[in-house]
Each structure stands twice: as structure tokens, then as C-alpha cells.
């Protein structure tokens, strides 16, 4: 086992980036290989981490802690637990696969892959940081390469999309920064996340800022910051735009990893640090989840652009996770200490986070495959492709079925856990949300029918079948989706202890009396 494995995970891509910067720009193949090797090594490390991870405990493991800016009590602190581990596995996996998704990039190869590796570092850093300041730094580090990747390698409206993405996210960052500093100054001048989890609930208890509860103020600041990332209605409109303009690999990363940071942030920061506000906000969270589910599905149903459809489906799928998260309050005395529901909901939300990562990645790669061949994504512009590209049609069928929550594929289990968890507390909301079961099937199947069924569109009788490289990027994801759909036990065991700790942090420390 490598020592300081978490640091290796974070800095390997940077090493790759430096190496790429040293390679002359015309050695395109070498650049790609370096990128593949560094992300591949990172993936291998993540797997090693997973194999050595102790599922029996819910606390942080493999911790590293070095003073960084001692005068402000800022340290370079890393750690992994059941909440971050799924994302720590998913991030290198998708980064690695995305190198191959991007293999055909022909413009600015050097810059592209260098930025991509930097993005990788930023993402995995966010999931591993245990110091709030470090967390914020990684959060911002991720933003810059994303901006350039969209703005330089994107579609026709790429500059508009990039600036919109950047501004939107920046607003979130600023709000988050305010919250971080508020916590720093009120809770004992520390940025350490574990320490803040200990101290924040009591330090903030009862304090009022300008007549408002400090807990609520900080919650709202953090929540809006994270909600923009998820994205929660009404902060969601940047997502379809950016997806439509972004190159395939960036879409994959965006949907697969970036959106999860919102949920991750809420569970990592908001829940344990501001447990009182969880009770105050859970109802709103469930309603927002419902809106995401229905609104996202309805918008997806109306789309003519396949990529936009998939983007809206992401909004829809995040709604399930939000419902599950809201279920945590079921474990409180107010709701009869229903730990069954709380565990189902919150574990389901984390599982949904991972599953959406693999499923949406598949969906975006598949959109990319057809776009590369037909140079458009108009759902009604195809027809009968199942005859021309049977393998592609088959893989798409698996991905669409996973997207609509077919049992036997992973998305079903996490969605059903979110529903089961939220049901005892938010009965009416969940019952309305189950409309999503039909709507999801409607938009996926109707898109499938229009693209693949019917008479073959003569224009596309020359379309080539999906090739080996593309299959290589899809098959691992499909296999994971299938395995987790049939046998989710080991995966859920990995996260369940951390979730138990989190539930207790919320319901035992949280005071569910009405806060001012």
C-alpha cells in the first residue's frame, strides 16, 4: 500500500500535466499516452484505496494533515470516508475513460489534455479535502480548466456557454466563501472540517445575525452555492446550455462528477455542521426534489436535441437524490425515530449520486458517438438506426433502460431507496414524484423509438457501427451499472457506516425544535 495515497491521487494528474507541458505540441500521440497513463495510475490507486478501505468504520481514513498556513490555522488535510469514497473511485474512472473519449480531439491537443488533467486534480481534491480552505481552493481550481475546455473546444455558442457557466458557478463560490469565513470566525478560527463538525452546532446555537438565525443564514449561503452545482431548480438553466456546447468528454465529467459536488457538499458540510437547519429545510428540499423530477422530465419530454434531453434527465435524476437526502429527518423523534427510512433515503441518495455518474456518462458518450458520425443530434433527424448500427442500438438500449430505472440496473435501486426513505415523511410529495416513473420511461423510450425504430433513414445507410475505442469507454460503465443493479450489497456496505454516523450527527445533535 502506497503511503500518502490520497496525495498521490491528487497530484498524479498534475504530474501528468507538467509532463505534457514539456512535450512538444506536435507529438500528439505521446501527449495522449501520458494523459492516459497518469489517469490510469490514478484509477489503479483509487482501486487500491477501495480494497484497503475499512467498511466497518464510519470515520475518516488514510488521513493526512500538514500545516499549510499556520497563521490562519489552514492546513493541508485529507481523508476519505464512505461518503467520499464512491466519488473518489468514480472521478479517476471517468477521467481515465474520458481520455479515450477525447482521443479524436485534433485542435490544441496539448492544451486540452493539460487542462483536463488539472480538472481531474481539482475534482478529486474537492472530494478528499478535509480543510475548508483547501476544499475551496480545489473547488476554484476545477473551475478554470472547465471554463477553458468549454470555451475553446466547445460548440458554436461555446463562449456564451463558458461565461455563463463561469459566472453562475462563481456566484455560488462567493456565497460559499462567505459561509466558510463566517464559520471560521464564529466557530473557533478553524477551517478543519472535522473540527467544525464538532464545534459548529453548539457555537452557532441561538446566535442571531441581523435578527436572523446564524444557522439559517449560513445554511442558505452554502445551499445556494451547492444548489447551483447540482443544479436545483431554479438555478438549473446553465446546465442544458453548457452540455449542448461542451465537447463530449467535458459533458461526461460535468454530469458524472461536477454535479455530484453539490450533493456531496450538502452532505459533507451542511448536514453535520448545521443539523438544526436540516429540520428547517428538509421539507423545502423534498419539494425542490419533486420539482426537479417533474420539471426535468417534462423538459426532457419536449426536447428535440438528444444532448439536451440527456441534460434535462440529469436534472430529473438529481431530484431523486434530493428526495432521499430529505429523508434523513425520519430518524428524529419527531418522526418516530424511523431509522429504516433515514438509512434508505440518505444511502440511496449517495448511491444515486454514483449511479447517475456512470449512467449519465454512458448517455453522453453515446450522444457523442452519434454526433461524431451524423454531425447533428436532432432526435427526429434519424430513424431506423437499429438496423444500421445494431451494437450501438443495443448499448444505447442498456443506457436508456438504466436511465429510466429498469430493475436489474443500478439506477433502479438507488431511486427506489430514495423513494422508500422519503415516503414515511413526505408521503404526498413522494406519491406525486412517482409520476417520474412514467415520465422518465416516456422521454427515453420515445427518443429511442424515433432514433432507432422505423424504416432506416436513407441518408444514414452509410453510417459506421460503433468502434472498438468507443466500446472500450462504454463497456466498463455498463458492466458497473449491471453489477450494482444485481448485487449492490458490497457497494452499500462501503458507505453505510458513514451514513449511520451522518444520520446520528443530524438527528442526535440537531435540535429539531423550531429555530428562530
Amino acid at each position, binding site marked *: 500500500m502506497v503511503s500518502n495515497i490520497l496525495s498521490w491521487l491528487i497530484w498524479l494528474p498534475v504530474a501528468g500535466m507538467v509532463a505534457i507541458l514539456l512535450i512538444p505540441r506536435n507529438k500528439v500521440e505521446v501527449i495522449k499516452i501520458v494523459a492516459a497513463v497518469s489517469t490510469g495510475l490514478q484509477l489503479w490507486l483509487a482501486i487500491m484505496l477501495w480494497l484497503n478501505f475499512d467498511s466497518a468504520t464510519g470515520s475518516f481514513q488514510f488521513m493526512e494533515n500538514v500545516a499549510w498556513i499556520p497563521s490562519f490555522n489552514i492546513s493541508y488535510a485529507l481523508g476519505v470516508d464512505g461518503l467520499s469514497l464512491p466519488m473518489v473511485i468514480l472521478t479517476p474512472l471517468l477521467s481515465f475513460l474520458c481520455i479515450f473519449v477525447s482521443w479524436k480531439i485534433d485542435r490544441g491537443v496539448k492544451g486540452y489534455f493539460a487542462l483536463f488533467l488539472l480538472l481531474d486534480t481539482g475534482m478529486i481534491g474537492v472530494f478528499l479535502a478535509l480543510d475548508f480552505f483547501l476544499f475551496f481552493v480545489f473547488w476554484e481550481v476545477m473551475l478554470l480548466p472547465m471554463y477553458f475546455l468549454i470555451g475553446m473546444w466547445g460548440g458554436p455558442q461555446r463562449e456564451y456557454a463558458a461565461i455563463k457557466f463561469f459566472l453562475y458557478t462563481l456566484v455560488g463560490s462567493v456565497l460559499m466563501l462567505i459561509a466558510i469565513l463566517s464559520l471560521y470566525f464564529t466557530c473557533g478560527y478553524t477551517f478543519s472540517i472535522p473540527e467544525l463538525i464538532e464545534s459548529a452546532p453548539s457555537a452557532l446555537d441561538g446566535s442571531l445575525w441581523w435578527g436572523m438565525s446564524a444557522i439559517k443564514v449560513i445554511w442558505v449561503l452554502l445551499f445556494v452555492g451547492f444548489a447551483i452545482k447540482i443544479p436545483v431548480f431554479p438555478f438549473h*438553466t446553465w446546465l442544458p446550455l453548457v452540455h449542448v456546447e461542451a465537447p463530449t468528454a467535458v459533458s461526461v465529467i460535468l454530469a458524472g462528477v461536477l454535479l455530484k459536488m453539490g450533493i456531496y457538499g450538502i452532505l459533507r458540510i451542511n448536514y453535520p455542521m448545521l443539523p438544526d437547519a436540516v429540520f428547517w429545510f428538509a421539507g423545502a428540499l423534498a419539494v425542490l426534489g419533486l420539482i426537479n423530477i417533474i420539471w426535468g422530465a417534462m423538459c426532457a419530454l419536449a426536447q428535440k436535441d438528444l444532448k439536451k434531453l440527456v441534460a434535462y434527465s440529469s436534472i430529473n435524476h438529481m431530484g431523486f437524490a434530493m428526495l432521499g437526502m430529505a429523508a434523513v429527518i425520519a430518524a428524529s423523534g419527531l418522526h418516530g425515530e424511523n431509522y429504516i427510512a433515514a438509512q434508505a433515503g440518505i444511502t440511496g441518495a449517495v448511491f444515486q449520486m454514483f449511479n447517475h455518474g456512470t449512467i449519465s456518462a454512458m448517455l453522453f458518450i453515446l450522444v457523442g458517438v452519434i454526433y461524431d458520425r451524423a454531425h447533428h443530434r436532432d432526435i427526429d433527424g434519424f430513424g431506423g438506426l437499429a438496423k444500421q448500427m445494431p451494437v450501438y442500438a443495443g448499448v444505447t438500449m442498456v443506457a436508456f433502460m438504466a436511465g429510466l430505472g429498469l430493475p436489474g440496473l443500478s439506477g*433502479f435501486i438507488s431511486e427506489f431507496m430514495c423513494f422508500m426513505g422519503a415516503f414515511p415523511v413526505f408521503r404526498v410529495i413522494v406519491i406525486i414524484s412517482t409520476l417520474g416513473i412514467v415520465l422518465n420511461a416516456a422521454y427515453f423510450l420515445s427518443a429511442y423509438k424515433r432514433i432507432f425504430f422505423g424504416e432506416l433513414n436513407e441518408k444514414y445507410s452509410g453510417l459506421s457501427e460503433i468502434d472498438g475505442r468507443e466500446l472500450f469507454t462504454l463497456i466498463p460503465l455498463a458492466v458497473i451499472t449491471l453489477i450494482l443493479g444485481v448485487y449492490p450489497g458490497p457497494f452499500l456496505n462501503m458507505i453505510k457506516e458513514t451514513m449511520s454516523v451522518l444520520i446520528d450527527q443530524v438527528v442526535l445533535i440537531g435540535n429539531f425544535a423550531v429555530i428562530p
Partner: protein
Amino acid sequence: MNIFIEYSLFIFFLPLAAFLINIFFGKRLPRQGDWVSIGAVLFTLALSMAMFAGMIFSYDPDFQVESSFTWINLGDFNIQLGFLVDNITITMLLVVALISSMSHIFSIKYMAGDPLYSRYYAYLSLFTFSMNGIVLSNNLMLLYMSWELVGLSSYLLIGFWFAKKSAADAGMKAFLTNRVGDIGFFIGIMLLFTAVGSVVYSDIFTSVADGNLAGTLLTMAGIGLFIGAMGKSSQFPLHIWLPDAMEGPTPVSALMHAATMVAAGVFMMVRLFPIMTPDALVFVAYIGGFTALFASTIAITQNDIKKVLAYSTVSQLGFMIMSVGTGAYVAAFFHLVTHAAFKANLFYGSGSVIHAMHHALHKKNDHETDPQDMRNMGGFKSRMPTTYRAMLVSTLAIAGVPFFSGFLSKDAILSGSLSFANHHPEHFLLPIFGFSAALLTAFYMFRLMYMTFHNEPRMPELIEEIHESPKEMTFPLVLLATLSFFIFYTLPYFNPFSDQGWFTYVIEAKTSLVHGAPSAHAIAEGIHHSHLPAMIISVLVAGLGFFLAWQMYLKRKLSAERYANKFSTLHRLSLNKFYVDELYARFIYTPVLKLADKIAFLDWDLYDKYVVDGFGKFTEWFADLIGKVDYDGLDQGIVDGTGRTANRLGDILRNLQTGRLQNYILFALFGVILIVIVQTMV
């Protein structure tokens, strides 16, 4: 491990293995891998027969083995999956394995030459696998999962000839309609799980028996689960997908959309009968009774041979559902079993006819004539004697003629409804639904037989080319026709007028666990008393139906056209299936799609464009304004000439919205410093 569980594991996994082999390697295998699927299904047939033999030898109504494992365990949240093998399971397994084997064999010739031959067999295996999951499950979770997978295989097989738009549409319609039902199913599961903390039947049953789970909650849960059954078993108003499902290959229609898959809803209701409250059961009974009559009124005017059979299936499923609702759930299961044999047979028969028509039309180079339209048939009796005889036997069975299986089971259902109405006179409609539907059943079935096989050919030029189908296709016909005789269900007794026999012995009615529900004994007593009147009425109505069909379509003494004109409104309603599809299109599909368009427009073209981008525009304008105030007002006006410093500051501020990232970060930093200052002051 118990031998029954062991067998069940093989029955469960063999078809799955066949599916995986065929979907990945089928094309490269000899004979395109059909033998893999056929072998797997024949193996499950052998195992089912062995289990069946075991059941007959032990002859124990209370036989039951169960085995579970923990699938998900989060500490408090647990999901157990497992198998429950009792006499109902074993009987159903045999039905599924038998009909499935027949469809596999029938398809060898029927599907020969199809470019996706191997994939067809893969899908058949997938279906067999998921259907067995429904049958074997001892919990709602595995039931629901298999339920949806059955839906998937149905979607794939209905849309198997996907190049045809109607087939692709029908597949999607089936999937979506089933999902509507699944919403109810899912809500039912959530209600029960929340109350009990487990999805295993026995835990739920215990909870109901203890009285922990009762009243409105249990009624709602029961109705929720039943809505799932309505989707799968095609009950009004979710029946719309089944007639369209006939777009699939005919062996698929026989297997899934006649005998097994659509019976899954009935099977589930039989399984869950012990927790159905009397209130929920009344709802169930009315849905079933109404569907039985409603569908048969449509079947009498259809001209497509498969459509007649499809509506007949809907109607027969309605009979079964009604029977569950009236408490005679053993009769429902009995009818499920007998119906599986004779209805599958009728479908194979129609498949054989269509196959013959197809070849004849092909020979004549006629691509216009519809090979499924009965108005193009007639006089096939002498050309296809085996098909004719087999179909005739099954027609007698479905019409409820004594000495045939359908007579016994339908009679049991009708006695149940009559007895129910005796005890609850306010529900007098139920037996009326039942007996009217029985009358129409005899009518439309003989109409079908006469139009297809009797009289002079309507297309004489074709008749020479009409041939009996090959052995692979007639074998299932003969076998299943044989199974339409009463004797197979009444052994060891030989009384054709009583359903007494092994079936009613091993499948014993159990009293509902719901407090206040009538006991199984009381229900059985009531049925026994209604038996004779029900039998007499049902024979009379079947005879009347037959007589009308005979007069109209064979003897031509009564003119069908004249009656159609006389009741033209009714005729048009029936012919157009009461416009249910059109109503759905008008009041559901179109409004939902329109709403989706509106929401998408609101989202993208209004909200994003004006509100979100509006903020951006506003900031830009504001920055410009500040720039102007600063430069024109302050700099030029007041401190004119103060120098470059102010000028540069103005430049910076004016450029706030240039899109340069450095500026934004700077901006953020200013904010931070401001906060820090405020914070330290507070």
C-alpha cells in the same frame, strides 16, 4: 438445501444463461443458437414436471418451502429476496414452462429466416427468466423487479419487427401503460414496507393477521398493488396496450399476451389475496367484471383474427380478476391455468392460419391483402384439418361447453359471482357482467371459427395455396388441444360437471387474514349452493351465443349486416373499441406533450433568456452606469485633470463585465475582505 428450492434455482437461472449466451454469441452459434434457448426451456419444463410430480405424490394442500437471503442490509433497512415454493408456484411454473416450450418449438418454423432469429430466442429466454421470477418470488421486491423485466421483454418482443412503425409504437405503448400501473404497485409496496419494515410476503401476512396493519391503509395498499395488476393483466382502463401488442410475432402473443405474462396480474392477486380487504376486493371485482363484459362487446365486431383473440383475452382476464374480487380466488387461478392452455392454443391456431395465408399471398405476389383479416378467409377447414380441429376444441373450451376445461373453471367463477351477489344483493351487477360476457364469448368465438374455416372461401384464388402448417407448428396445437379436455383437471375423478379433482385439492382456498373478512369455508359454502343455477345459466347463455353465431355466420339466416345497421351507433362504438384510444390521445397524451412543450419553452426561452440572462444584462448596464458616473461625472466633471490614477480606476470599473476571469476573482476577493471587516466589527 431443499430439493424444490434447488430445482427452482435452475428454473430461474437457466433461461437467464440462455439469454446471455444468445444475445452475445447467438449469431455465431450453429442454427443461430435457437437450441440454447430451447434446451434451457425444455430443461425447466422437465424440472417443473418433476416438481409437479412431487406435489402430486405428496398431495399436501399445505406444502410450502421458502428460502431467502439478505440482498441489502444497511443495519435497520433490510431487503430480503427469496423463493416461495408452494402448490400455486409449482402449478404456475409448469404452466409457464409448458407454454413457453410450445412457443419456442412453434417459433422454429414460424420465425425461420428472420434476420434477427437469434435475438428473438434471446428475448424469449429473457421473458421466461423474468416470468419465473414473478412466480417464484416470496417478496414484493423480486416480484416488482421481475414484473418490470417482463415488461421489458414484452416491449422488445412486441416491437420485434421494429422497422414497422406500428410495431414500435405498440411496444412503447405497452411499456408505458404498464408503468402507469406500476406507479400504483410501487405506492402499494411503499405503504406496506413503511408499515411492516419488510417486503417479504410472510412478514406482511403476519402483520395483517396480528391486526397491526388494517383499515384504510391496508385497503389503499391493496388497491395500489391491484393497479399494478391492472396494468399487467390489461384491465379497463389500462387495457389499451394488449390489442396493440398483437403487432408482435404470434408465438409471442400466445405465450405472453394470452397465457402467462398477462396472467401475472391475476397470479399476484391470488398470491396476495390473504391481505386484500373486503373494500379493496369490491373494487377489484367491479374492475374485473366490467372488463370482462366491455372487452367481449368489442370482440364481437373485430375482423382481425388476432384482435378478436386479444379482446377475448382481456375479457377472460376480467373474469379471473372478478373472481378474485368475489373471494373465489381458487377459481380465478383455475381459470388462469385452463385458459393458458386453450387460449395459447387458439393463438397458435391463428398463427398457423396467418402463416398459411402469408405463404399463399406470397405465392400470388399479393402484398396488399391483410393476411390476418377474417374477411379474406373462409373454407380453410378442409385445407388445414389439424389446425381446425385443434382450434375447435379450444373454442369449445373457452365457450364453456361441458366436457371441456373452460366449462369447469368458468363455471366456478360464475358460481362465485352469483354467490357473492346472493350475499350482497347490492352487487347484483357482477353476475350480470359475468353471464353476459359468457354469452358474447360463445358468440364471437364461433363467429371466428365460421368466418375462418367454414362456408365457401372468400378468396377462392388463394385456397389452393393454403396448406397445413409443418409439424413444429401443429405439435403444440395438438398437445394443447388435448389439454383443453376436462379430464386433466379433475383426476382422479371423472365427473365432467364438477371441478372436484387434484387441482381443487392441492390448491386449497385459504381464509383471508384481514379481520372481518368472510372465511374460506363460508365462501366455499356459498359457491357450492350457487353451483347448479350458475351451471344451468352458463350452459344456456353459451348455447344462445353459439346459436346466434351459427345462424348469422354459418346458416346466414340472420344477417349480421342488418343488425349492424339497425344498431349502427353501438356497432360503430364496438368496431372502434369505444374510442378509448382516441380519448386517451385527446385528454392525456396531447395535453401532456403540449404541457411539456410549454414548460420547456418557459424554461429555456423565457426564464433562462430573460430572468437569468437579465441579471447578467443588468449587471453589465450597472457597471456601465458606474463607469459613466465615474468617468463623465466624477473624472471629467469634478476632478477633471486630477490625472491618470482616476482614469485607470474608471477603466477598471468600466471593464467589470469583460469576461476576464482575473477581474471576477478580484471582485470576489474584494467581497471577502469586506466580509472580514464586517465580521470583525460585529
